C-alpha cells in the first residue's frame, strides 16, 4: 500500500535522529528549496507498487499540473489541437492508445531524450519524475481508464455497521489499511479545554474542569457537548469561520476604506448558528433573503451577504471597471463559499484545469445583476434593523406621526377664514409684483473701489473694499418707454454681515440720496417715495435738501428683502441711443440690490409687500374662480405651511416627523439586497477587459459543467441559484461545508485544499468519510448542530493530541487521524482567552463592532477622511474578538499578528504562523497588560493566603491544571525578583498599573500587584495558554 504519507516519510525521516542537527537542517533546507520549486519529485514513489493506478488519485494530478495548461479545457491556449482531459480526444489523436503505451504519443514524448521533442517543454518549467512517467505508462497499459473528477460525482454514503459512530468506523477502517493505531483518549483536562475552545471559543473555568474530571459517567462528554452547543457562545464560535469565508468586514475595502453598516449581518450569523438554522435556509436567506415571499427583517438582513464585497468611493473610478470588479468579486465568493471552486481564472478565459467556461463565469455573475446599488460611491445607511423593543417604539412614533398628519390635514373652518384674508392680500402683492420689471445694468461702479458684481437675476452684489461714504453708479439701456417709477429692492445674501442687505457690521445700510439722469441731460425729478421701512425719504429724493446722515435704512430687519418705490415727476421715454444713469449715495453701503422700472402708475400706490415665491404668485394672479383643483390645493398647502394660524398644528406635525426620523436614524442599520426591475446588462468580457464591449450578453445560468444545460423560459433569480446550491443533486456544497467543518475540529480539511475541490485540489485520502458526512448533512436536512455533535462525540475527536516522533515521521500532518492535532488558537480566541481568564470579558452577544486599544497613528495612512481611532470606552472595551472593528485596509494589528484575514477576499483557510509580532502583542499590547493586571488582582484576592496557593490558583485559572514543582519554582523566582524591584521603585509599579481603562484597586499593595502583573503576563504568554491541544 503506497500513500502520499509514505512519500513524506521517505522524505523526512532519514537520518533525522542519528544525524546531528546542523546536517539535518542543511538537508532540509536543500530539499525544501527543491521541493518548493519543482514540486513533485517524490510522490510518484508512493504508487510504484503493485496496485493499479487510479485516474483520480494518481493520473489526473500529473496531467492537470503538467499538461492541461496547453492540452486541457481552455481552447485558446490549447497547443497541437488536442486535449488530454477528454479521453476520446486523446485517443482519436493517438496521444493515448489504450493498452499500448509504446504506440502512445504521450509516452513517446515524456520519455523523449531530444530536447525539442520532450514534454512538458522546457519553457514550462515542469519536469516529470521517472516514477510519474512510469505511472503514466502503466496506466495506459491498463487501458487508460478515465474517471470523472471525484467532486463532480454525487457522494455515496457508505454503509456503517450498526451501533458504530460512522466517523470512528471510517477512520478506523482507513487506519487499518495504512497500518496505524488510534491514540488513547485525551485526559479529561485536555478534553474539557478542547471542547470549550472548539465549541464556544472560551476556556473552561477551573470548577468546570474539576466537575468534568469527576464525572465518570459514559455520557460525560456528550452532556458537556449538549451544554456547550446550547450556550449562546456556540454561535459566536461558529460565526468566526463563516465570517472569514463570506469576507465580512466593517469597511468597504478599496481606497478610502470607509465604514459601512453591516454588523447586523454578523449578529444574524451568530443567531443562525445558535438557533440551528438549517444550512439550506441559511443559504437561501443570504443569497436571496429579499426575494423570499413576504420576507422578514431577519431574512433581509441575511441578504446583506450580497453586499459584503469590496467597493470604492474613489474619485475617477470608472463605473464599467467596478461593475466588472463587483461581478467577479461575487462570483468568486459564491464559488468559494458554496462550491469550493476557484473559478476566478474564468474571468479572463476558460478554466485551464476545470471544465469551467468563461460563459459559466459571467452567467453566474448575471444572477447578481439585479442588485440595486450604486457602482461607485457611498452605499447609504441601509435599512433600519430594530430589535423588538426598538420596533415597538418605532411603531409608536410612526402612529404619532400619522395622527399629527391627520390633524393637520383635517378640515378646519378657522383656517379657511384666515386663508381667505391671506389670499386677498397676497394676490394684491402678486399683482403688484407683476407691474415691476427688473432691468439688467450695463455697468455698475462703486467710488470706493468695491466690486459690483451683476448677477444673472439682475441683482448687484457688492464685494471687496468698503468706505465711509459710498456712491454706486449704474447705467441702463433698453429702458422701456414711458416709465413712471423706479424700484430699489434691497436683498439679503449669505455672504453679507447678518446676511444683509447692507454691508455694515449689523447688516444695515443707509441710502442718503438717489439721483437719476439721462446721460448728457438734466437729472430727472421725483414726486414721491414710499418704502416698507420708513425713513427720511424726502431727503433721499430731494436734490435740494441737505444731505443728512438720515436716509433710508432697515435698522434691524436684516436677512429679508425690502423695497423703496420712487415716483417720477413725469413719464420718461429715452431715445434709443440714450442711457439712464442711476446714482445711489450711501453712508453705509448696500450689499445686494436690484433696480426695477414700471410704466404703470398703479405700481406707485400698490402694496409694499413682496409676494410669495413665483410658483405661488403665478397661481395668485389667476383669479380665484379660474384656478384648477391642483392650483387651489397648492395654494392652501402653502398657506398652511406659513400661516400663524396653523403654527401649532404644523409644529406638532414637524415634531412628530422629526421624532420618528431621528429615532429611525438612531437605530442600527444594515445594507441589504434589493432588486432592481432593470438588471444590469452582463457581457462576457474578453480577457476580462471591461473596455471591450463586444462580448456576448448573458443571462443568469447555472454552471453547465455542474448543472447541465439549464435555460428556462424565465430569467433565473438569486433564489434559483440558492435553491440549486442546496439541492440534493449538487455534488459540491455539502462536501465543501463539511470539509470546512472538519477543519474546525481537526485542524485540517479531509481534502486538504479546503478552498479548491476542483482538479487542482486534493482527492481526500479518506473520501468515504467526507462523502458520508456530506450525505448525512443533506439527509439530516442540513442540520449543522447534528453534524457538530457527530464530530465531537466521536472517539476520533476525543483522542489524545500528544504525538510521538515515530508517528509524526510517518504522518507529519496527521492526515490519517491516528490522534488529535494541536494548533495555536485563532486570533480572536487568543484575545477571548486572555479576557476570560482575567475576568474582564463582557459576554454580551452582538451589537456594533468595538474598538480595543490600538497604537496611535496606526490609521495615519487612511484618508478621505483622515481618521482618528478612539478606543471604545466602558464595558464594550472587553468584548470578544469577533466583535472587533474589521478595518479591511488596516485590520487591528493584534488580530493581524495572529493571522486573522483582512477579509478582502473569501478566506477559507488561515495561516497559523509563529512570528515575533505575536510575542510583541502578547507582551506589550495594553489589552494584554491590562488583562494581566486584572488576573493579578484576582489571584491576590481569590487565590488564597500564601504565595504558593495564589500561584497555583492563577495557574489553574489560565491553564486548567496545577503547576508542576519546577514551574512553581520558576514563577516564584520571578515573583521574588520583581517584587524587590517594585518595592525599590513604587513609581514604576504605579505606571504599570495605570495601563488600561479600568483603574487598579488602590487598596492592594501596589508594588506587589505590579510584580504579580508581570507574573500574569508570563502566564498569558505561554505557548500552552494559546494552544488548543
Amino acid at each position: 500500500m503506497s500513500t502520499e504519507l509514505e512519500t513524506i516519510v521517505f522524505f523526512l525521516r532519514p537520518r533525522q535522529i542519528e544525524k546531528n542537527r546542523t546536517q539535518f537542517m542543511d538537508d532540509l533546507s536543500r530539499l525544501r528549496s527543491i521541493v518548493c520549486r519543482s514540486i513533485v519529485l517524490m510522490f510518484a514513489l508512493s504508487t510504484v507498487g503493485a496496485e493499479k493506478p487510479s485516474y483520480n488519485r494518481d493520473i489526473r494530478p500529473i496531467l492537470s499540473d503538467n499538461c492541461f495548461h496547453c492540452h486541457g479545457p481552455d481552447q485558446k491556449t490549447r497547443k497541437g489541437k488536442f486535449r488530454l482531459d477528454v479521453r476520446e480526444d486523446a485517443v482519436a489523436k493517438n496521444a493515448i492508445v489504450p493498452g499500448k503505451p509504446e504506440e502512445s504519443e504521450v509516452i513517446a514524448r515524456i520519455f523523449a531524450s531530444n530536447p525539442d521533442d520532450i514534454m512538458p517543454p522546457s519553457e514550462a518549467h515542469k519536469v516529470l519524475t521517472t516514477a510519474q512517467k512510469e505511472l503514466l505508462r502503466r496506466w495506459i497499459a491498463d487501458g487508460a481508464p478515465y474517471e470523472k473528477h471525484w467532486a463532480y460525482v454525487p457522494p455515496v454514503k457508505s454503509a456503517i455497521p450498526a451501533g458504530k459512530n460512522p466517523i470512528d468506523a471510517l477512520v478506523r477502517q482507513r487506519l487499518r489499511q495504512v497500518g496505524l493505531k488510534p491514540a488513547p483518549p485525551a485526559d479529561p483536562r485536555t478534553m474539557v479545554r478542547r471542547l470549550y475552545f472548539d465549541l464556544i471559543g472560551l476556556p473552561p473555568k477551573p470548577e468546570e474542569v474539576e466537575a468534568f474530571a469527576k464525572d465518570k459517567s459514559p455520557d460525560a462528554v456528550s452532556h458537556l457537548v449538549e451544554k456547550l452547543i446550547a450556550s449562546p457562545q456556540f454561535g459566536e464560535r461558529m460565526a468566526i469561520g463563516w465570517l472569514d469565508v463570506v469576507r465580512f468586514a466593517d469597511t468597504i475595502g478599496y481606497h478610502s476604506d470607509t465604514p459601512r453598516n453591516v454588523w447586523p449581518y454578523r449578529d444574524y450569523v451568530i443567531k443562525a448558528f445558535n438557533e440551528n438554522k438549517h444550512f439550506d435556509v441559511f443559504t437561501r436567506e443570504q443569497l436571496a433573503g429579499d426575494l423570499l415571499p413576504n420576507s422578514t427583517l431577519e431574512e433581509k438582513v441575511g441578504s446583506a451577504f450580497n453586499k459584503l464585497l469590496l467597493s470604492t468611493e474613489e474619485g475617477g473610478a470608472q463605473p464599467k471597471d467596478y461593475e466588472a470588479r463587483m461581478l467577479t468579486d461575487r462570483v468568486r465568493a459564491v464559488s468559494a463559499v458554496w462550491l469550493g471552486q476557484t473559478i476566478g481564472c474564468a474571468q479572463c478565459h476558460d478554466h485551464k484545469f476545470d471544465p469551467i467556461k468563461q460563459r459559466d463565469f459571467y452567467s453566474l455573475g448575471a444572477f447578481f445583476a439585479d442588485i440595486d446599488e450604486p457602482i461607485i460611491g457611498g452605499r447609504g445607511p441601509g435599512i433600519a434593523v430594530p430589535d423588538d423593543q426598538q420596533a415597538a417604539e418605532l411603531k409608536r412614533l410612526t402612529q404619532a406621526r400619522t395622527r399629527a398628519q391627520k390633524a393637520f390635514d383635517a378640515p378646519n373652518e378657522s383656517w379657511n377664514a384666515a386663508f381667505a384674508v391671506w389670499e386677498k392680500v397676497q394676490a394684491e402683492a402678486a399683482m403688484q409684483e407683476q407691474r415691476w420689471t427688473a432691468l439688467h445694468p450695463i455697468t455698475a461702479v462703486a467710488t470706493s473701489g468695491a466690486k459690483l458684481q451683476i448677477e444673472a437675476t439682475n441683482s448687484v452684489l457688492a464685494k471687496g473694499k468698503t468706505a465711509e461714504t459710498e456712491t454706486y453708479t449704474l447705467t441702463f439701456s433698453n429702458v422701456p418707454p414711458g416709465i413712471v417709477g423706479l424700484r430699489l429692492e434691497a436683498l439679503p445674501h449669505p455672504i453679507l454681515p447678518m446676511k444683509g442687505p447692507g454691508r455694515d457690521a449689523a447688516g444695515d445700510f443707509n441710502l442718503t440720496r438717489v439721483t437719476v439722469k439721462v446721460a448728457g441731460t438734466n437729472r430727472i425729478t421725483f414726486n414721491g417715495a414710499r418704502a416698507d421701512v420708513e425713513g427720511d425719504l424726502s431727503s433721499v429724493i430731494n436734490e435740494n435738501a441737505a444731505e443728512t446722515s438720515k436716509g433710508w435704512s432697515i435698522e434691524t430687519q436684516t436677512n429679508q428683502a425690502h423695497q423703496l418705490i420712487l415716483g417720477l415727476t413725469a413719464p420718461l421715454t429715452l431715445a434709443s441711443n440714450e442711457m439712464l444713469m442711476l446714482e445711489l449715495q450711501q453712508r453705509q453701503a448696500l450689499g445686494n440690490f436690484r433696480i426695477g422700472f414700471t410704466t404703470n402708475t398703479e405700481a406707485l400706490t400698490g402694496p409694499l409687500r413682496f409676494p410669495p415665491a413665483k410658483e405661488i404668485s403665478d397661481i395668485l394672479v389667476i383669479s380665484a374662480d379660474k384656478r384648477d383643483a391642483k392650483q387651489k390645493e397648492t395654494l392652501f398647502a402653502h398657506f398652511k405651511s406659513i400661516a400663524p394660524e396653523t403654527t401649532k398644528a404644523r409644529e406638532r406635525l414637524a415634531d412628530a416627523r422629526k421624532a420618528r426620523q431621528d429615532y429611525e436614524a438612531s437605530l442600527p442599520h444594515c445594507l441589504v439586497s434589493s432588486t432592481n426591475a432593470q438588471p444590469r446588462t452582463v457581457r462576457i468580457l474578453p480577457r476580462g477587459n471591461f473596455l471591450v464591449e463586444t462580448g456576448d450578453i448573458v443571462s443568469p445560468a447555472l454552471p453547465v459543467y455542474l448543472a447541465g444545460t439549464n435555460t428556462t423560459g424565465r430569467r433565473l433569480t438569486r433564489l434559483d441559484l440558492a435553491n440549486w446550491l442546496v439541492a440534493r443533486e449538487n455534488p459540491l456544497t455539502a462536501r465543501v461545508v463539511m470539509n470546512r467543518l472538519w477543519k474546525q475540529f481537526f485542524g485540517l480539511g479531509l481534502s486538504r485544499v479546503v478552498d479548491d475541490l476542483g482538479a487542482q485540489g486534493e482527492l481526500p485520502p479518506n473520501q468515504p468519510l467526507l462523502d458520508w458526512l456530506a450525505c448525512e448533512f443533506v439527509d439530516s436536512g442540513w442540520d449543522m448542530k447534528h453534524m457538530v455533535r457527530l464530530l465531537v462525540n466521536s472517539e476520533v475527536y476525543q483522542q489524545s493530541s500528544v504525538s510521538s516522533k515515530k508517528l509524526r515521521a510517518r504522518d507529519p500532518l496527521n492526515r490519517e487521524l491516528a490522534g488529535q492535532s494541536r494548533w495555536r488558537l485563532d486570533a480572536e480566541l487568543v484575545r477571548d482567552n486572555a479576557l476570560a481568564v482575567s475576568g474582564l470579558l463582557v459576554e454580551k452577544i452582538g451589537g456594533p463592532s468595538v474598538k480595543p486599544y490600538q497604537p496611535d497613528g496606526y490609521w495615519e495612512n487612511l484618508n478621505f477622511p483622515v481618521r482618528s481611532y478612539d478606543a471604545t470606552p466602558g464595558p464594550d472595551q472587553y468584548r470578544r474578538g469577533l466583535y472587533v472593528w474589521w478595518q479591511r485596509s488596516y485590520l487591528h494589528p493584534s488580530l493581524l499578528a495572529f493571522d486573522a484575514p483582512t477579509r478582502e477576499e473569501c478566506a477559507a483557510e488561515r495561516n497559523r504562523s509563529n512570528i515575533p509580532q505575536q510575542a510583541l502583542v502578547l507582551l506589550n499590547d495594553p489589552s494584554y497588560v491590562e488583562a494581566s493586571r486584572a488576573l493579578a488582582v484576582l489571584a491576590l484576592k481569590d487565590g488564597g493566603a500564601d504565595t504558593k496557593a495564589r500561584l497555583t490558583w492563577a495557574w489553574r485559572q489560565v491553564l486548567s491544571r496545577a503547576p508542576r514543582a519546577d514551574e512553581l519554582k520558576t514563577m516564584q523566582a520571578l515573583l521574588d525578583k520583581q517584587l524587590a524591584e517594585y518595592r525599590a521603585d513604587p513609581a514604576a509599579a504605579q505606571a504599570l498599573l495605570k495601563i488600561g481603562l479600568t483603574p487598579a484597586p488602590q487598596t492592594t499593595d501596589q508594588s506587589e500587584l505590579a510584580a504579580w502583573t508581570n507574573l500574569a503576563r508570563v502566564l498569558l504568554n505561554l505557548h500552552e495558554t494559546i494552544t488548543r491541544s
Partner: protein
Amino acid sequence: MKPHPELQQFLAQRQTRRTFLGRTAQGVGALALTSLLNPTLLSAGAALAQKDKWKGVVNPLDYPQKVKRVIWLSMAGGPSHLETFDSKPKLAQMHGQPMPASFTEGKQIAQLQGQKLVCFGPQHGFKKFGRNGTEICELFPQIGSVIDEICLVRSMTTEAINHDPAHMFMNTGSQIAGRPSMGSWATYGLGSESEDLPGFVVLTSLGQGGQNQPIAARQWAAGLLPSRFQGVHLRGKGDPVLYLSSPAGVTHAQQKDVVNTINKINAKYDTIVDDPEIATRIVQYEMAFKMQTSVPELMDLKPEGAKMLELYGCQPGDGSFASNCLLARRLAERGVRFIQLYHKDWDHHGGVKDGIRLKALEIDRACMALITDLKQRGMLEETLIVWAGEFGRTPMSQGGDGRDHHNAGFTIWLCGGGIKPGFVFGATDELGYSAIENPVDVHDLHATMLRLMGIEHTKLSVKFQGLDVRLTGIAGKSIEEILT
C-alpha cells in the same frame, strides 16, 4: 493522491516557521533552556535562530546575483512624467488646444471621463544634465547631478488607473487583493541577511501639499505566503514597530526576565508534549526581545552626524522622505532585503505647477543623497533603487491647472547594480500620452528586479487555489536592454 500542495504547504509554512528545529526534544528545548539559565545572554538561542534562518527557496540562484537588496521609492499618488522626466515640447505648443482624439480613443480615463480633453503644456522647464545631456525638469537639479548613475524608463505602463488597484498591481502584479507583495516574494525567494530586523521593511512619509492619498497595509502584505514574509511598517511616530516598547513601568531588565521565564517554562513544557511549534515560539520571543533594542538603535539618526544629515537634508525625527532615505541606507547596511519607501502627495489633479515644486523640494536632494551615500560606501553596486509612481498623469488638463491619472505611458527610473547608468530607455508619443517605443509593463519591471536578484521570475511560484501563483502573473519579460 496528490501530495504536492500539501508538501508545499507543509514545507513552506511549517518549516518556514522553523518547526523542524524542535523535532528532537533534547534539541532546541534543551539548548534554549541552557541559554536561559545562563545569564550571559541569549546566545545559544541566537545561534539557533541564526542556523534556523530562512535562506530562501531559490537555491541555487537562477542567475548571477547582481544586487543583494532593493530600495523601492514609491511615489504615491502618481507623479506627472511631464513635469519630471519626460520633456514634451510639442505638448507645450499644443497647450490649450483640443487633445487629438487619435491619442485617446479606446483608452481608460479616470476623472476626465466624458469631459472635453485639452492639451496642457509642461508647467516647468527642462534642462540637460550629465554627460549625455539627458533632459529632465529643472526643478530636480540634484537628481540631475547624479543622472549619469540613473537609467530612465520613459515608456512605463500599467493596467490600473485608480490609486488603490494601481498600487496593488505595482506591488503584487495583480489587482485582486491577497497576492504577496514584491518585498514578500523577494524575502521568500532569497531570505534576509539581517540578524535582528525583518527582511522586508516599509517606511511612509507625507507630502506638504495635502494630496495624501490613502495607502492600505495590504500593499506590503504577504498575502498567500506565510506571514513571516509580510512587510513590517517602521513608523515615524510612536513605536517604530507596533507594540515594540515594553509596558510603562517595566524596565528592559524586567522585560528580559519576563521573556526568559516564558521561554524557560515553554522549553520545559516541550519536553513533556514534544510539540515542534514550541521551539519556534522560543526563537520568536528571543527575536522580539532583540528587536526591542535593535529597532530603536536603527531609528536613531543622531550618530550619523551633521554632515550626513546635511547631505540628505533632514533632521532626526522629522519623519520626512529624506529621513526615510537615510533610514533606508541604514536598513541596507543591516542586511534588510527589501526596503520600500512610500512618499505621498503626488496626486496633482489641481495645482500641478506648485505641487511639483513642493515635491521637488521634498525628494530631489534626498534621492541624490541616497545614491551618493550608497556609492561612497561601495553599496550602490549591490543595491537596486527603483523610483516609480503607481501611474503617471495625463497630458490633458484637469480643471485648468492639474492632470488626471494616466496609465498609458509614464516615467520611472532605476539605479544601481546591473543597471546601465546614464541610460534612457523607451519613449512616449510626442504628446506624452502612450508609450510607443519599447513599452514596459509592471510584470516586466518585476521580472527585471527579480533577475537582478538572481531569480528567474517564471520559476518563483507558489501553489494557491490550484494555480502556480507568480509575482509576474502569466506574463513579464526582463528588460535586458537596460541591464549591463
